[in-house]
């Protein structure tokens, strides 16, 4: 089970990178970044997974009950919060690009090179 989860995480990460590399649209590119990001969720959550483990809420639970690791869940939450900011910023830049240049193709935005 665990190896499958790790494999899925790796696959999604690579798919996201492929999409971002070939992307011709900034909005699509931002979404590819969220795809890469979702691979980190799967990785983190499968690291903390325990078979038959409950949610890590210990109120009224017998001592010694198996629970999944709460640390990776908080890492995932932190990651979501940070990435929302970054993606929002990239989307705002895409919006601006459309207003100023009339295109959201990163190739056509490339003024500076060499």
């Amino acid at each position: 089970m665990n190896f499958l989860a790790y494999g899925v995480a790796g696959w999604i990460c690579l798919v996201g990178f492929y999409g971002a590399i070939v992307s011709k649209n900034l909005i699509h590119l931002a979404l590819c970044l969220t795809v890469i990001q979702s691979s980190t969720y799967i990785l983190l959550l499968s690291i903390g997974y325990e078979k038959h483990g409950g949610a890590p809420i210990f109120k009224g639970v017998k001592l010694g009950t198996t629970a999944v690791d709460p640390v990776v869940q908080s890492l995932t939450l932190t990651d979501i919060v940070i990435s929302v900011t970054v993606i929002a910023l990239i989307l705002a830049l895409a919006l601006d690009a459309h207003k100023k240049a009339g295109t959201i193709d990163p190739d056509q935005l490339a003024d500076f090179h060499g």
Partner: protein
Amino acid sequence: MSWLLPLPVAIPLLTAAAIVATESLLPRRVLDAVALAAAAAATAFSLLIMLHAEAGDVLHWFGGWRPSGGVAIGIDFAADPLGAGLAALACGLVTLALLYSWSYMQEAARLFDALMLVFCGAMAGFALTGDLFNMFVWFELMGVAAYALAGFKVEELGPLQGAVNFAITNTAGAYLILIGIGLLYARTGALNLAQLGRMLAGHPADRLVIVALTLVFVGFLVKAAIVPFHWWLADAHAVAPAPVCVLFSGAMVEMGIYAVARIYWTVFSSPLGHAGEVRSLLVWIGVVTALVGALMCFLQRHLKRMLAFSTITHAGVMLVGVGLLDPKALAGAANLVLSHGFVKGGLFMVCGAVLVRLRAVDELRLHGAGRAVPWWGVLWAAGAVGLIGVPYVGVFLGHALVDDGATARGIAWVQPLLMIAEAVSGGALLRAGARVFLGWGAKDDSLLTPEPPEEPPERDAAVAPMAVAATIAIVIGLALSVTPGLEVRTEHAAERFVDRTAYVAHVLRDAKPAREPRPPFTVRAATTESWAYGLAALALAALTAAFGLWRHRLPELFRAAAGRALRPPVEVLRSAHSGIVGDYLLWLTIGTAVIGGVWAFTLR
């Protein structure tokens, strides 16, 4: 003194929030002054922490969650002199940049002040923290503020490209770091650097540790602008406002280098007992970065882009200093970060002033125009000389120490290569200065890359605060090589930085190291070898500048032969800097695979 530690982070962040909240209530100058005072206070507290840390690392466990039985539960800030010194450098540069923006960022906006303070707090947190995931959070916060600042002048098209490329490549790098952190957590169940180091100690590195090492290092090397992950840096610098470039080049790039050093010594130095393979790879990519940066620097006519490639050169040298895995070379890298930060920051300030006064930042368009502003020409020349490594000036001390470390580790061949890289990039700056401020050399040069012009800020910007900030930055940067006691202190600090067992014992078991006597305030005489390299660098830089200025006077036969030999590699390198973000991500993927592959084969 542990209560001091959160202050360099808390003061800027809280002030930033206060500035945004009171934006419509208070006049602009009051808010500017508050921002300036907050950055200055953060600098002062960072310096205070650095002085305290000289006698032993300063620890602060947030919420009082101290380690119990040698197991870290909470999140800590652990300041040693190098980390606190880096925080002080970052906060100090923010202070100078805010002083500079007092008149430079006219239309600006308090949002600018708030973003600068968030950037400041995030960099200080990054340099002070002792927890790997916490490091990632500060890294991302620093990134978000930086992306917004890079694209601050969104009325133009140029800033969009720079900000987009910067944001996307660095975000992709950050995800690699996060995956690496996840893998390390899966192996050890720890996020605290000391705890990670303790858990991994005593086991040889297996595949998982090598993959984690690769991902974490690559992510931070993206921020450090190391070849082949450096592409975004020139795009971002070309478009960001000058005071923002000061922070990008002077402090942010160095944070990436610092992270590699910090994480290597605390986490990976023990499982990778045979560190020779890590050393050779890091030194190699550092040397390649320095040379690529120098060549690209020489090919630029856009002054800010030229300075950006010069930063890449120096980032390469710093990576060599860290990658030699030697305390002396690490002390060299630390000194290099310090002097380069101030000098390069000052040079970017000169660029901004040139844009205000002369309405352009293009070397050829400005041919001779700089005669009207002689003081800025003097500052530019002083800064350019400070970056070459002339004996006792600017980056010389850092260089000499990196060279000493290389000799000690038996890889003395890097010294001439680094000397050439510094001389060529310094020579390019001298050439640009001579052309702009003295009107020397040809009026046109087909070798240099044309770039779109930058929209200057309003003409009536008062230059006095700008001149004060730039002069302070360049004078500090130049004087660092002859600061009494600095060399001994960084060497002591670097020796403590690499002492993993003492760090772990102090953080997890609160075992304080023995107090050392205060080192003397002296300036050591440079060795004959350092003198020779320094003077050779100066001569080569002068030759490079002369070649750039008067190439057309060389005999036709020689020029044709040199053109045939040099044109193809130069064109390949130039076309690789395509400005397209997809290409940059492809390089990121290939670079990660190659570095991981090399380490997977050699570190077994």
